[in-house]
Structure formats: structure tokens, C-alpha cells
């Protein structure tokens, strides 16, 4: 049974900005489902609709058999939500925040200690500290505690690791893994493509549209081009020169490297490309073949319009 069934959901702001366009997908029970896309793709709008904070213009959403729009009161009891920005009371202590949300859900800390224990162990030394005085990673852990305090069936995390240091990010994903053991379905959005590989399945979202849903491994398997990487000193000249490249390829800077995916026969394309670079006096180191990442898959789908 699907935990969440989303059918033809659309939402526009003021009739002009179409934040979510005809989105349809489902999330299976107990999986960690990632919503991946750049800023402004419509992730947060979709999250607000799923968490009953915003009404869609059209479409249906069923969550564990309940209608999210008509039955939002019941849905609120079974969902946990971690908003994109820190939304706990900064002037209440860690303990007080947790008590407060426990009561709001007619629950208690003791009742669901088993779920929050791994996180609670990390933040309990600071339980008398004001929530506003915690570090970024600690704030997120406390927020997660508050979102889990009533043992939700579905947990929504809106960009939980944005603005969090790499160590805390890793810890946070480890915690999510432990949450799964309780059979909680997790829906998480992130602009970081590298994190997406830690999800069971991911949906790629661009300009309000879902452009692909699959497991990270399948996305990588389905990568159509042949991907190569190299380093160049002068990325700017390279970008200009690529405008006139006769090859059927897809070129983009990737961190301090350059990635290029070829869609022609690689035996002829690679030597042609090397000749093109030397003709244009562009310095580069060795051009190596690499395995694509989720980000490469996302870029391929967006730029070559492979969306289904």
C-alpha cells in the first residue's frame, strides 16, 4: 500500500507563478523518499500542500487512505513536519519546546522515548538551554525530536540539512536511517544531489514539474551519455568556445572540474573533442571517463529533456 498518493496536484500563486504543475507520484510505506531540485523548483510549496498548510488549486492527495484536503485534522495527527527554517520557540528551553509539542499532539515524551532516544541522547545535555542558543546542527536535532514526539506515520523534512555543517549532515542522515526502523515513511527534500543517493527513491523536480522518479541507482544506470571529466585553468574561455563545438555533447562545470557527456560514438567523439580543445588553445589535463552521479543525471534530464 502506498503511504502517499498524489494525483494531478497544481498550485499557482496569484494565477501567474505556477509553483507546482500537475504533479503525480506516490510514496511507498516505510521508504525514504527524496524530493530533489534546485531552489525555486517548488519543493517547499509541495511540502506545504502535503503537510496541510496550503490548499492546492486542483488535484487529490491521499495519505494512508485519508484525504489530505478534507480530512486535514486527522492527517495532522499522523504527520510530523520539519520546516525549512528553524521554527521552534527560541525563548523556550529544549525541554520546554519538547514538552510543548508533546502536549499539542496529546502525547508525552516518555510515551515515545524509544523513537527519539538516539537523538535525545545527543541533545539532552543541553535540555535547559534556550532553543535559540543552540548550534545549527543541534537546532535541527531538536526540531526533529519535536516532529517525532507523537510517533508520526509520515515524516516530512523540508531541506533539513541546508545550512548545516558536513559532519552534522552526515549525523542527521544516520538518524534518519534509524528512524526507518520504526516503520516511519520519510519524505525529505534537498537541493544537495549527493544526499539524494541516501534515499530509497527520488523524485526530481524542476519548475514545478516532476521530471523523473526512480531509485538513485536506476537513475545512474539510465544515464544515456558517456561521461568524462577533466580540469581546465580557464573555464570561462572554455565555456565560450563550447558554443561552437560541433559535437553532440553536454558540457557543464562541476565543482572545480568540467564534466562532458558525449552522445555520439565515443571512439570518434573523444579524439574530435581533444582536437577541438587544442585548436582553440584550451589547456586541460587528462580527460577521464567517470561514473555519473545523481546530479549528472539531473542535468542530463533537464538539458536534454529526457523527462517522461
Amino acid at each position: 500500500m502506498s503511504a502517499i498518493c498524489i494525483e494531478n496536484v497544481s498550485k499557482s500563486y496569484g494565477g501567474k507563478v505556477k509553483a507546482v504543475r500537475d504533479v503525480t507520484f506516490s510514496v511507498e510505506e516505510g521508504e525514504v523518499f527524496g524530493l530533489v531540485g534546485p531552489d525555486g523548483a517548488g519543493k517547499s510549496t509541495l511540502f506545504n500542500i502535503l503537510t496541510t498548510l496550503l490548499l492546492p488549486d486542483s488535484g487529490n492527495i491521499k495519505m494512508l487512505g485519508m484525504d489530505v484536503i478534507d480530512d486535514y485534522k486527522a492527517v495532522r495527527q499522523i504527520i510530523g513536519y520539519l520546516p525549512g527554517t528553524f521554527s521552534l520557540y527560541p525563548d523556550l528551553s529544549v525541554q520546554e519546546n519538547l514538552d510543548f509539542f508533546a502536549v499539542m499532539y496529546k502525547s508525552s515524551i516518555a510515551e515515545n522515548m524509544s523513537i527519539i532516544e538516539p537523538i535525545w541522547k545527543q541533545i539532552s545535555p543541553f535540555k535547559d538551554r534556550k532553543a535559540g542558543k543552540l548550534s545549527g546542527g543541534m537546532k535541527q536535532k531538536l526540531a526533529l525530536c519535536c516532529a517525532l514526539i507523537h510517533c508520526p506515520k509520515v515524516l516530512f523534512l523540508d531541506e533539513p540539512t541546508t545550512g548545516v555543517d558536513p559532519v552534522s549532515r552526515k549525523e542527521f542522515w544516520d538518524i534518519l536511517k534509524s528512524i526507518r526502523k520504526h516503520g516511519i515513511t520519510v519524505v525529505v527534500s534537498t537541493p544537495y544531489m549527493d544526499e539524494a543517493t541516501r534515499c530509497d527513491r527520488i523524485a526530481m523536480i524542476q519548475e514545478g514539474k516532476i521530471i523523473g522518479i526512480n531509485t538513485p541507482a536506476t537513475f545512474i544506470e539510465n544515464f544515456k551519455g558517456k561521461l568524462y571529466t577533466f580540469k581546465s585553468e580557464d573555464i570561462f574561455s572554455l565555456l565560450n568556445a563550447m558554443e561552437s563545438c560541433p559535437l553532440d555533447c553536454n558540457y557543464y562545470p562541476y565543482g572545480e572540474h568540467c564534466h562532458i557527456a558525449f552522445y555520439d560514438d565515443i571512439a570518434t567523439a573523444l579524439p574530435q573533442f581533444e582536437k577541438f580543445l587544442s585548436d582553440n588553445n584550451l589547456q586541460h589535463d587528462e580527460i577521464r571517463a567517470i561514473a555519473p552521479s545523481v546530479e549528472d543525471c539531473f542535468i542530463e534530464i533537464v538539458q536534454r529533456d529526457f523527462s517522461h
Partner: protein
Amino acid sequence: MRIILMLIKKEFLQVFRNPLLLSILVVAPLVEFMIFPFCADYEIKVLDIAFIDNDRSQVSRDIINKFNASGIFVPHGLLESKEKADAMMKHDRIDILIEFPHNFEQDLYNRQNTRIAITANAINSVKAGIGTGYAQEIIGGYMQDFAIANGSGSMQAMAAQLQAQQAAAQQQRKGSKTTSIQSDSPIMAEQAASIDISNVYWYNEQMNYKNLIVPGILVILVTLIGCYVTALNLVREKEIGTIEQVNVTPIKRWQFLLGKMIPFWLLGMVEFIAGLLIMKFVFGISVQGSIPLLLGITAIYLLVMLGLGFFISSVSENQLQSMFIVLFLFIVFVLLSGVFTPTEGMPEWAHKINYLNPMSFYIEVIKKIILKGSEFVSVQKETIVLSIMAVLINTGAILSYREASK
């Protein structure tokens, strides 16, 4: 029930941890009560006065001495010329100028009409009005004595009836900020008996301005706590996003709003009772009417203000916006309500606007119960209006809050 108690507990924790809010709650009433009633006073205690005596007679000297002995007027001597007097008034050295004409005394004895000119600096209209009033009273008093002293014959007929025909010709002088009121006081020789007018100010026998100001401050205090603090509080939750986190919980809207209202309603009532105690023990004004009735109507008025605060916070995006709206409404409320200025002189349309002004109804109730000792019957109308307002504004607040969150 547990949810509402938790919400109230949370609200109090936050209030007592917010040093700024706490000091506003404690300091604001103290400052308002301890400073304002002593400053806001329409009573004029000092008036600077000068004379131009063209007559230099016994009568004019006697009148000048009366002025000097009055204790209200500070004499700045006899001036030789009108020009000198004008200059002094222009530089705010004098408020009132009294000018005696030539042959003043002689005309009086000859039962001729004569006139004394009183010129007042009307930049401060209250000062000018009261100053000329005092001056007329002193001259009138003297004239009466004069008539009695010269009682024989025709003189006894002379009553010092200074007609209050303040044909006030207000002339704006070019380049100066001085406006003057010219008051001609013809003395009529043919008037018979004199009339002694004695005033009694009911419900405020000493015409003590503090009795009018202090209840006004109570009203302002309750309004500020009710409207301002609530509006800021709720919109702050919006600003820092906590309202989103609360909205995804299954608590109901009315629970949330009730959890907000009860703490601020309680705070408002505590402030009001503290204000009543200050009023009693510092200013010696005790409530003439029923205290439970006063508290009951205050409770309703607070509901109106709380609802208004919520309404404002649900239509504004941040604390700054809500502050501007509250400030704007607050000024309109205060100026129209008659808290510090009488409403009787207002035009008809202002009276109509006042039907929407909860503060104007509440100040009526406060004045009636505290100063007059009115029973419920005489504040019935106000109570009903405030109750209707409370219901309407709170319904509006709940509805607009619903819209904002869905």
C-alpha cells in the same frame, strides 16, 4: 483542556522571559501614572501680565493692584507704549495686556460708557481663554465693589457686569506669531441689581484635572496591553515561523486563539486592577460605583482589544506592519474618544465615526462608574455595544486567521 493550559503556560514563560515586554508591562503604567497626571493639566496657574495705563487714576491703580494681588498674574509693570507691549507679546514675555483708556475714572463717575482692552496671546488658546476670563472676573469684582462703595445716588446702579461679548477680533499679525483677542467691556450704568454667580462642579467638585486624566490613562493602559501586546505577539510567531509548526499539529484554531487570549486577558486585568490601586492610593480617587461592574465591562472591552490585536496580526506580515496599524488606530481612537479632549465640539461626522470607536464607549463607562458612581442601567447601552463589538471582531479574527493559515 491540557492543551489550553500548556498554551497558557508557554505564553507566560515567554512573557516573563522577554525583558523588554516585561518592562513595558511594569514600567509603562508606572510612568504614565506618575508623570502624566501631573503634567497634563488644563488649569492655568501662571499668567504674565502687563498694563498700559493712560488714565493714571485711583481707579486704574486699584484695578492693577487687584491683578497684582490675585496670585495668578505675574505683573510685568506699566508700559509706556503700545509698541513696547506688542514687542513683549511677540517674544512671549507677556500673555495678557490690559489697557486703560484716557479719562477712565472720570467717565466712570460720570456714568459714561468706557472700555478696558484686554489683549491675549492666543497661540495657546486655553491660556488666552482662561486668562481673559480671569481678567474679566477681577475687573468685574472690582466694579461691583466700586458700585457698592459709591453706593449713593446713581452710582449704586452701576454693576460691574462685564459682558462676555468677546467680540474677539482675531487678528493675525504679519510676521509674528501673535494673535490677539480684543475684548471690549462696556460698563453699563443703568443696570440694577447685581447677580452673584456661584459654580458647583458636580462629580468633580474641585474641578480637579487629575480626576479627568487618571481614568483616561487607565483606558489607554488597558488598550495598549490588549491590542498592542497581542498584535505584536501573534505576528512574531508568524515572523519566526513557529505558527507553521503549531499549525501542523492537530490542535484546533479556537484552542490556539484561546491559549493566546487568556494570558493577555489576564495580564490586562492585572494591569487594570494595579491601575485602580494606584488611582486610589496615589491620587485618592476611589471608584464611586460598583467595582465588579467596572471589572466586568473592562473584561468585555479587553476582549474587543484582544480581538482587534489578533485581527491586525493576521492581516500583517511582520511586527513592523502591525505596529504601524496599531499606532494609527490608537491615535484615531484616542483623539476621537474624548479621553483627553471633549467630544461635544466635534462635527457630526466625527460623532458618527465614534460609533465604531470602542474606546469612546469605554471611556464613557469609566468616567460614569468611577467619577459619577453610575449604576448598570446608565452604562447599559455602552455594555451592549462593546459586547457586540467583541463578538464581531473576534469572529473576524478567527475567520481571517483561518484564511491566513490555509
